[in-house]
């Protein structure tokens, strides 16, 4: 009998083209390569310079999301992009994909969206696959039991040319979450609590497997939120073993296996679990029942507290003081009730249909507070359509929020959707780094429920006050 293996080991070993040796990294085969406009132009240039082709156009899929506008008149109305360099970058992706024969979901496509939203939505993301993209939030796809991680542009070139990557095997970290999340507490709160516990470098060098009763109870959208932010703990990837929830999500998706192929695929996917007795390099155990709605107060995602709590009175973190200065907060101050200026619901962390429903459930029959700008940016054009079919757009608009076309938008402000200097933004995105949402912007990461509740009150608000 072979030794028990972790989920990560199983997926890794199935993709070893050449195993790792003491002198050389493994050559790892990649099943799905997602590309977008920002991190690929220089990689295509290398291919061109060296006379190389894209080895597997059938395993490569392009979209445009990071620097694209979200205003309808710019996406569909023929109005030019506000930012010329963004237009140029998007145009370059069109040229590159056409020249190299790569499928591209362009601005006109009704399947376009944030790269980490469309992979799962199309059923291209599947258990057991290796999935890469020149974007750190590729970890999102690990929610399906895929080994998915972000790569740099040089590596994008490697995958385009060879469909392989040179990799050394990561260590494994099991995060077991027991118990149940309480009402008003979401997957976003859970992952913020996890990062708060293990730290922003706590997962460095490791692939996390999220396990336990509370993880099993999560929907696929929620699992994606958790895996998405694995990188914010520094982890190479986050994974959840596939189960009936995964299979139900993938059944009948456009790119999921069909008929007898489906049955065969599911039989294989069922084997993608960590064997009894398999050993992780590290283990962390959490209690879901103790998690509160969370919000960040500082300048990295590990600087996080309960919405109903306070900024810490002191910290051993050497950048504590600098973070407070940047955020304009005092040590020990209460968070709830602190005024805000902007609310952003969107990003690859929280822009899926269930996220929009959650935000809408709070906003229904209420108004965004005077003086607060609220932007709702669905993760994909398909999600936008589904949300509109349910009337969510109307709830957002009636409340005074802006309803936009899909894209990364205000998560990183590359497309001009930015937060002003010194303004407080409650954002469902993933990074509260200095300047992330705009020069001098002050980002408070939270769940869609907390974001919507804060929009209504114009101040940081525990969503349970409004549920």
């Amino acid at each position: 009998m072979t030794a028990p293996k972790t989920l990560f080991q199983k997926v890794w070993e199935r993709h070893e083209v050449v195993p790792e040796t003491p002198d050389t990294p493994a050559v790892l085969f990649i099943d799905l390569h997602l590309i977008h406009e920002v991190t690929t132009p220089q990689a295509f240039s290398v291919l061109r310079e060296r006379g190389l082709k894209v080895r597997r156009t059938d395993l490569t899929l392009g979209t445009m999301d990071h620097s694209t506008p979200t205003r309808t008149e710019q996406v569909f109305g023929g109005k030019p992009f506000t930012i010329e360099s963004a237009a140029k970058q998007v145009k370059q992706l069109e040229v590159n994909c056409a020249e190299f024969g790569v499928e591209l979901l362009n601005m006109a496509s009704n399947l376009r969206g944030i790269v980490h939203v469309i992979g799962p939505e199309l059923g291209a993301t599947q258990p057991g696959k290796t999935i890469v993209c020149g974007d750190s939030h590729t970890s999102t796809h690990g929610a399906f039991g895929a080994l998915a991680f972000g790569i740099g542009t040089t590596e994008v070139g490697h995958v385009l040319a060879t469909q392989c990557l040179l990799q050394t095997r990561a260590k494994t970290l099991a995060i077991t979450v027991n118990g149940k999340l309480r009402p008003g507490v979401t997957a976003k709160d859970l992952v913020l609590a996890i990062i708060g516990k293990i730290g922003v470098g706590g997962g460095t060098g490791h692939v996390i497997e999220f396990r336990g009763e509370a993880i099993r109870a999560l929907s696929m959208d929620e699992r994606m939120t958790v895996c998405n932010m694995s990188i914010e703990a520094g982890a190479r990837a986050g994974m959840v073993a596939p189960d009936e929830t995964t299979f139900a999500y993938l059944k009948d998706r456009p790119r999921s296996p069909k008929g007898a192929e489906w049955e065969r695929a599911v039989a294989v996917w069922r084997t993608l679990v960590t064997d009894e007795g398999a050993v992780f390099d590290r283990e962390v155990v959490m209690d879901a029942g103790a998690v509160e709605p969370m919000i960040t107060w500082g300048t990295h995602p590990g600087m996080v507290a309960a919405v109903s709590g306070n900024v810490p009175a002191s910290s051993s973190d050497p950048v504590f003081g600098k973070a407070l200065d940047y955020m304009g907060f005092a040590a020990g101050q209460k968070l709830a009730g602190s005024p805000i200026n902007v609310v952003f619901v969107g990003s690859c962390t929280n822009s899926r249909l269930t996220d929009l429903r959650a935000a809408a459930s709070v906003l229904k029959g209420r108004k965004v507070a005077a003086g607060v700008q609220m932007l709702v940016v669905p993760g994909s054009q398909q999600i936008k359509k589904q949300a509109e079919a349910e009337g969510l757009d109307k709830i957002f608009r009636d409340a005074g929020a802006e309803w936009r076309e899909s894209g990364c938008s205000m998560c990183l402000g590359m497309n001009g959707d930015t937060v002003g200097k010194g303004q407080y933004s409650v954002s469902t995105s993933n990074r509260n780094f200095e300047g992330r949402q705009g020069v001098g912007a002050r980002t408070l990461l939270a769940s869609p429920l907390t974001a919507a509740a804060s929009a209504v009150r114009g101040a940081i608000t525990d969503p349970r006050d409004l549920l």
Partner: protein
Amino acid sequence: MQAFTSITSRTAVLPRTDIDTDQIIPARFLRTTSREGLGKQLFADWRYLADGKPNPEFVLNQPAAAGCSVLVGGRNFGCGSSREHAPWALLDFGIRAVVSTEFADIFRSNSLKNGLVPVIVDEATHQWLLANPGVEVTVDLATSSLKLPGGKAATFPIEPFARYCLMHGVDQLGYLLSKDAEISAYEKRRAAR
């Protein structure tokens, strides 16, 4: 890629922990299709004042930092976004090695592929370097060591393959392309499954 064997330089010290790649180069400068010329945007939001003038308080703007090619940073250097523009910007500015106790995985991988050496040191060496900015050090890849003043040295971990590529200035794509037969065989095996 420019070969790296040994670099001797005074250090510039940026003691902050968790320096993320959004600080190394903010997202608004990623709307480019080239890898050239990013050095002027390195640490843009720390390096320049609102009016675009250099911030005299920022370490890389101080006369002592002129010509430094070794940057000492705080723990967990390069966390966050996978943007390879971060090592491109550091290299374009003239930095050839970054010293810290810990690097984020993707930043480290990107650096190794571009000739920027991530030097991992122990806590005591790190503390000493933070407390003594501007000392002359040598990053020597042949011995995988950081040579400090007074004849002291600290060895740092680096994978043999990455070290070979750095020392010979070869990129890793050539090696991957040389595995074409193995990749084709793997694709055949997979198709038959």
